[in-house]
């Protein structure tokens, strides 16, 4: 079955620390990959996406992610976090086998940044 696994449930960092959130998926075919962010009390917002081409993608607010096909991974990184990055982060996969198919979400990682 298709699934997405995020390694960390809750990450606590101090401001200016570097961030890496892990995401692995299980699906043998071609996928589109996404990271969404959900700030407290708000809805899902797209942080970045990968469809094809350069496996290192840059998103909003200084985030980037690297797609490593051989590892079925799409880890999210930010060199220096800010207090305003406190939020829940969801990795999601869209298997491209059937157009119009569903997004499969990971369980989310809660990031708390201490000022």
């Amino acid at each position, binding site marked *: 079955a298709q699934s997405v696994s995020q390694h960390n449930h809750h990450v606590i960092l101090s401001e200016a620390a570097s961030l890496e959130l892990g995401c692995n998926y299980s699906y043998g075919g071609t996928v*589109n990959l*996404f990271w*969404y962010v959900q700030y407290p009390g*708000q*809805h*899902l*917002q*797209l942080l970045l*996406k990968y*469809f*094809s081409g350069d496996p290192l993608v840059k998103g909003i607010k200084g985030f980037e992610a690297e797609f490593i096909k051989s590892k079925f991974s799409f880890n999210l990184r930010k060199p220096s976090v800010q207090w305003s990055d406190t939020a829940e982060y*969801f990795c*999601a996969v*869209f298997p*491209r086998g059937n*157009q*119009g*198919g*569903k*997004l*499969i*979400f*990971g*369980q*989310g990682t809660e990031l708390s940044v201490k000022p």
Partner: protein
Amino acid sequence: EPEVTQTPSHQVTQMGQEVILRCVPISNHLYFYWYRQILGQKVEFLVSFYNNEISEKSEIFDDQFSVERPDGSNFTLKIRSTKLEDSAMYFCATLPQGNHNEQFFGPGTRLTVL
């Protein structure tokens, strides 16, 4: 920039009552979805809808749930007889045709069943 809208933002209902959650998709999008997120848990797929019929549904989407596009613009999710465990945030999402696209999410409706 066009966006997906949802109404109401918050719905409180008594157990056993029917609720209808509404979504207005982005106008040229062809695929429509409902997802839900129970507090503290991950976002779960409920149903996808294309060409006026359900494309796929999850195990959660039982006979108590239904979807329709009654007037060609709104996309609704109906829960016939709500249960306590239906309390969640319900997100509508829409997708244009093509593989190199992303789903656009609405702001969600928070459903509280008492």
